[in-house]
């Protein structure tokens, strides 16, 4: 950046030469008006963050080569057509963060090559019908964060080349039929954070190129059936609304859909065919739709990778679930009433399964067979009494298995050698103490009883394991030895506190590095199971 002394540069601005052209930066200089004496070779002019409240007529009339004009962050209330006269080559006009209350109507701005117009963060309550008559080449329009109460339908009619527009953060309550009918090139439309309560069924007619539609944070009461005409739609958002049902064949007109965000809606009902024939959809999440009794028919929605359907009323799963969803990676079906499981055999890409809080009783050998990519399986809070010995045998990638709060008396360990996390708490009939040899990579294990953690050295972590294993007698002397091992402070006369302290730290670090087993044995939960069953 050159200093202000350069001859072409009006004080106190900073100028930079770009070949024969000039880039002028007058931002944040406390200016109250547009500087005079700007070179006709100016291509970039930044007047942002000043105190300019008015633009004198013909202030830029010599700047025919100006390509970008920034007047954001000033106090402008109105800009007449004459103020912007002469800017034949202007492509970018930034007027955001001013106090604009209205736009010119009778003599609109004449900017034939304008591509981007920023009017966001102003005080516009409406847009006159003729406001955009002189900017027909416009492609990108920001009108967000204003006070519009309706879609400026007439004004938008003058913008056949518009490709991206935001009307977000206004007070629009309704979208009428044919609101955007001339915007055949529009690709992105943001309407989030308005008060849209209703939409006419033909309100999106004419939007032949629309790919992104954002209706989040509104007050929609009904599913926006008007989207049916949007054949190119790829991304649709209507989360944080007040929609209670998704009808049958809801997205029949939108085969290109890749993402649909509709969380934070009180959705109770979902048509069984609502999500059919969406071959590019990769994520579907439905939470709390209590009226869903049947698993949705996902025929033709073959690219789904993440399916979340929780807190509904499902009691069964289709047998051909995996044939319909061969690319499924995450299946989250917690908080339903599922009793029987199909074979997930064809879902070979599955990495995570969440089936917690259901009513499953048995796990067959075929249920999770061939799921060589499965890493996490949550079956907690069910009623599982029996698991086939081979149920987990081929789950080579499984590292987390949660069987908390079931009715198991035994657990097959075949195939579980890779586990790092195993949870069995709450299986009150399960007494077996699993040998650490079964789980060489184990880091966190939860058992029904404390004594089952003793095999992990939690009981006698101050004594060499081998010496501990070879002693078989059960006399008082052994009891004394174990007590000394557990509580070194009671050791006999040769006791060396420093050596003891040093040993304690080694064992502690060894313990933490190996396995965290809970519930941890202690004085009131000794390693020996008293009277054959643990009472105290």
């Amino acid at each position: 950046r050159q200093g202000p002394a350069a001859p072409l540069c009006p004080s106190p601005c900073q100028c930079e030469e770009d070949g024969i052209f000039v880039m002028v930066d007058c931002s944040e200089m406390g200016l109250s008006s547009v500087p005079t004496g700007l070179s006709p070779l100016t291509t970039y002019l930044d007047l942002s963050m000043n105190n300019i409240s008015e633009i004198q007529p013909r202030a830029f009339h010599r700047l025919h080569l100006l390509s970008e004009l920034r007047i954001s962050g000033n106090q402008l209330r109105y800009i007449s057509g004459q103020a912007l006269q002469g800017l034949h080559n202007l492509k970018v006009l930034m007027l955001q963060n001013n106090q604009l209350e209205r736009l010119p109507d009778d003599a609109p701005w004449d900017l034939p090559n304008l591509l981007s117009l920023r009017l966001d963060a102003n005080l516009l309550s409406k847009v006159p019908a003729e406001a955009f008559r002189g900017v027909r080449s416009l492609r990108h329009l920001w009108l967000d964060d204003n006070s519009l109460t309706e879609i400026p339908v007439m004004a938008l009619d003058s913008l056949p080349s518009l490709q991206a527009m935001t009307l977000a953060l206004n007070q629009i309550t309704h979208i009428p039929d044919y609101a955007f009918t001339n915007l055949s090139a529009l690709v992105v439309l943001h309407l989030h954070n308005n008060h849209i309560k209703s939409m006419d069924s033909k309100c999106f007619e004419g939007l032949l190129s629309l790919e992104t539609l954002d209706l989040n944070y509104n007050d929609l009461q009904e599913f926006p059936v008007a989207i049916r005409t949007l054949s190119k739609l790829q991304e649709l958002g209507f989360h944080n609304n007040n929609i209670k049902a998704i009808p049958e064949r809801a997205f029949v007109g939108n085969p290109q859909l890749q993402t649909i965000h509709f969380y934070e809606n009180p959705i109770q009902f979902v048509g069984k065919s609502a999500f059919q024939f969406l071959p590019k959809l990769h994520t579907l999440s439905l939470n709390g739709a209590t009226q869903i009794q049947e698993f949705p028919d996902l025929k033709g929605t073959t690219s789904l990778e993440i399916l979340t359907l929780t807190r509904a009323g499902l009691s069964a799963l289709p047998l051909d679930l995996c044939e319909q969803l061969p690319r499924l990676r995450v299946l989250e079906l917690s908080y339903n009433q599922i009793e029987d499981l199909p074979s997930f055999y064809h879902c070979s890409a599955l990495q995570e399964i969440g089936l917690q809080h259901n009513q499953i009783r048995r796990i067959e050998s075929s249920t999770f067979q061939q799921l060589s990519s499965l890493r996490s399986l949550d079956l907690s809070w069910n009623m599982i009494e029996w698991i086939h010995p081979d149920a987990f045998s081929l789950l080579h990638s499984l590292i987390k298995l949660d069987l908390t709060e079931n009715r198991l008396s035994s657990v097959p360990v075949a195939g579980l050698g890779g586990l790092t996390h195993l949870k069995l708490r709450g299986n009150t009939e399960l007494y077996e103490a699993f040998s650490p040899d079964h789980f060489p990579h184990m880091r966190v294990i939860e058992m029904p009883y404390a004594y089952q953690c003793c095999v992990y050295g939690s009981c006698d972590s101050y004594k060499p394991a081998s010496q501990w294993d070879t002693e078989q007698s059960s006399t008082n002397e052994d009891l004394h030895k174990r007590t000394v091992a557990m509580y070194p402070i009671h050791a006999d006369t040769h006791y060396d506190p420093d050596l003891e302290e040093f040993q304690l730290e080694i064992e502690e670090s060894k313990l933490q590095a190996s396995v965290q087993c809970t519930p941890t044995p202690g004085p009131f939960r000794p390693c020996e199971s008293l009277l054959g069953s643990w009472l105290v």
Partner: protein
Amino acid sequence: RQHKISGVSSGCQQGGCLTCSDYNGCLSCRPRLFMHLERIGMKQIGVCMTSCPPGFYGTRSPERNTCTKCRSECDSCFNRHFCTRCRAGFYLHLGKCQENCPEGHVRSDAQRECV
């Protein structure tokens, strides 16, 4: 042509800060301004601006206004999926920056667009 980041000054004297510290710059912005964390060496300085810097787009919401990075092939963009100007070597068509143009269009290096 790299424009100066307009609508911004650094440190605590910035016009846009609502709260700030000399070390971290703006901690919050005046209403309707965008907060952007600018990296200067190892430090990150909070900067309040009327428009996000090149290579970022602004997202307004009732709580705050943030700057988010455009896709790598875009010099500037309207949102994450819609570019308004491409990086050298890419050509703009309907908001997408591609190395080649669709049928019926040719590459314009001056405008970096398919025309």
